[in-house]
């Protein structure tokens, strides 16, 4: 069992190679890349084997584990890569283990970079998504939430009827044209138009308990990736800030020599390392009991939305005016964190979930305490 990243030779090669590639081919700039440029980079990534890496071996993949996939996601976070890798290097490859035929058929395309997934959930405010019998097979009802990169994807992995095994369904839908929204951190998302969509029965990958289990795994995998991305963004932002503070002088000394600035950065570092710990716990728990996986993902997202975002704000505070400009990377780290904190229901929803999962209602003893 693996519980630490970056320990094997191939771990290090992967991470260093990824860092080099990303810094050379898609270093961060304030200018947004065009979709064409993004597609080109995507093809090069496929050439490097990033999308095949995590696929099960029976589908031609390298069987890389979650720590390796998350290392790529984290490295992409460092350069604030606009198009998320999470679905294609981590979530979908892991889901293939469940052997859904409608999905595994896409494995070669995924490995080649021709197939790109976006993860779509229902919008709770609109009552979520549901599936009913339809003309061609099934029909979707209800509204989807904002999905990252849904406009750039070739396929949407759609979670419907979450929360109860009756009605739960996981679908793989060929993407339709969809108006994109620019997010505040420069990434793109879209709300896929699913209400009333008729699909062949083969689009349904799973229903009932199977679907529910898969949807839960997707959610927690996506959370781990979100945290890895945010951690990467923050860690690179901290490096940049420390370099700046050691150069810039004020009142005759470097900014980095002021104790107040040092403590501000030490606070940010404490929060950063906690976030990393929770990311690693989330990764380790992907192969374990769903209850722990769920708690790990929720805890990581709570700390991301609170301490992670606060750490990003400390980077701005320590840097001063320069970090308020669009030209400087640190402000974009903050916006990346703000999006991560707010997406998929946001931090407050995760806090509520964690309360439900860890606090017994009405004085009943804690489930796990009594099970322990």
């Amino acid at each position, binding site marked *: 069992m693996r519980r630490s990243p970056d320990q094997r030779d191939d771990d290090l090669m992967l991470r260093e190679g990824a860092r080099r590639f990303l810094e050379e081919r898609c270093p961060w700039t304030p200018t947004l890349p065009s979709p064409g440029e993004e597609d080109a980079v995507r093809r090069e990534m496929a050439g490097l084997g990033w999308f095949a890496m995590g696929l099960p071996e029976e589908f031609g993949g390298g069987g890389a584990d979650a720590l390796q996939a998350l290392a790529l996601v984290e490295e992409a976070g460092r350069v604030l890569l606009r198009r998320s890798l999470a679905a294609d290097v981590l979530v979908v490859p892991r889901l293939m283990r469940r052997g859904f035929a409608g999905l595994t058929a896409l494995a070669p395309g995924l490995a080649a970079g021709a197939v790109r997934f976006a993860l779509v959930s229902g919008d*709770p*405010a609109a009552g979520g998504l549901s599936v009913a019998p339809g003309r061609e097979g099934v029909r979707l009802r209800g509204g989807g*939430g*904002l999905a990252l990169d849904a406009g750039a994807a070739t396929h949407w992995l759609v979670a419907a009827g979450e929360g109860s095994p009756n009605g739960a369904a996981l679908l793989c839908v060929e993407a339709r044209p969809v108006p994109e*929204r*620019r*997010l*505040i951190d420069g990434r793109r*998302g879209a709300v896929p138009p699913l209400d009333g969509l008729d699909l062949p029965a083969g689009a349904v990958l799973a229903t009932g308990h199977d679907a529910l289990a898969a949807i839960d795994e997707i959610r927690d995998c996506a959370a781990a990736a979100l945290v890895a991305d945010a951690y990467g963004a923050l860690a690179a932002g901290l490096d940049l800030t420390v370099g700046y503070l050691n150069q810039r*002088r*004020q*009142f005759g000394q470097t900014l980095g020599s*002021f104790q*107040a*600035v040092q403590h*501000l950065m030490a606070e940010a570092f404490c929060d950063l390392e906690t976030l990393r710990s929770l990311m690693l716990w989330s990764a380790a728990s992907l192969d374990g009991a769903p209850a722990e996986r769920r708690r790990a993902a929720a805890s990581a997202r709570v700390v991301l939305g609170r301490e992670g975002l606060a750490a990003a*704000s400390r980077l*701005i*505070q320590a840097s*001063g*005016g320069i*970090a*308020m*400009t*669009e*030209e400087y990377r640190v*402000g974009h780290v*903050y*916006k990346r964190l*703000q*999006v991560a*904190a*707010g*997406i998929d*229901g*946001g*931090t*407050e*929803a995760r806090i*509520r979930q964690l309360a439900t999962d860890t606090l017994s209602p009405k004085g009943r003893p804690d489930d796990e305490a009594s099970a322990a």
Partner: protein
Amino acid sequence: MNGRVDAFLTDDERAFRAEIRAAIRAMLPPDLARRTREGIHLSREDMARWNRILDARGWAAHHWPASAGGPGWTPIQRFLFEAECAAADAPPLSVFGIYLVGPTLVAFGSQAQQDRYLPAIRSGAEFWCQGYSEPEAGSDLASLRTTARRVEGGWVVTGQKAWTTEGHFADLMICLARTNREAKPQAGLSLFVVDMRAPGVTIAPVVTIDGGHSVNSVFLDEVRVPDDALIGEVDRGWGYAKFLLAHERTNNAQVHRSRREFERLKALAAARPGPDGAVLDDPAVRRRFAVVEAHLAGLEATVLRVLVDQTEGREPGPEASIVKVIGSRLQQAISELAMDVIGEDALTMPDAAGGEVAGWTERHLFRRVVTIYAGSNEIQKTIIARATLGLR
């Protein structure tokens, strides 16, 4: 939504407020109020229009002395006027002309300078920007590098100014420049009026974290200014700049803006659907609002303590130094709460959202600046510790 902290007010002050409130409601065009609510960086035209409307009533330069064309209000009356303007979503008045340049000229400018510049500030015909900060001199003004060289009939100013808010539509700059290299860092600075359309002035826009443009870099390349552009005496500009900072001790608290935003946020949270009813029906959310309410009341009461002292002719006490720290933190706390209230809709750029949620995200992002500018909170805390508490 006003009058939260009423008990400090006299009956006369309450009557004054009622009068002001009615007048502002009558004067303020609804479209201006709407753009103020939704926007963060207002256009010059919008600001000038409100300036003109107020000037017609004699209220534009509301904290200038009557002798300079102000209404002659007490500090408490100014506070009430500002509170009513904020509550009605009136556009803010230009910080630089009304709050900075006017009082500086009244205190240190020549009669000719006052006659030349004050009326156009009052009417909104001319806009000013502030040329204090530089790339290497933000909080540490004493290290600034822009120089003014004495020449026949005037001065030649060269250097670079940074973070120049509203510089791209300002007509004039109040510019701090070094006139004496021999003196100690603070001692050799002088204050000038620079025409923003003079040869040698170049303006480069700076896009800020919110995606907006309100800030600029201003390059001054051998810009010639006449003799009468010097404000006060040569080499004494640092003292003038500091006088003004001491004069405006509560402005940085931004208490009216925070109160107005907080009331709007309450309404928003009461209207938006949450996990069970409205967002504001959730006891955990209510608790967070109540804590902000207490902090905001604390800030309002602190600002009023300072203003009561000033109105009653006393020097304000040490509480004046803390309102920047507390007020800026509160501004950020309110916009952070707003992000949670609005949720996912706050993450997309404005073209997608709109309506009641418009502007909150941009304000929230730009709001990171308030703990940095006007003397960062770290600098303020050092001042409090050393000057007020006497730690050494």
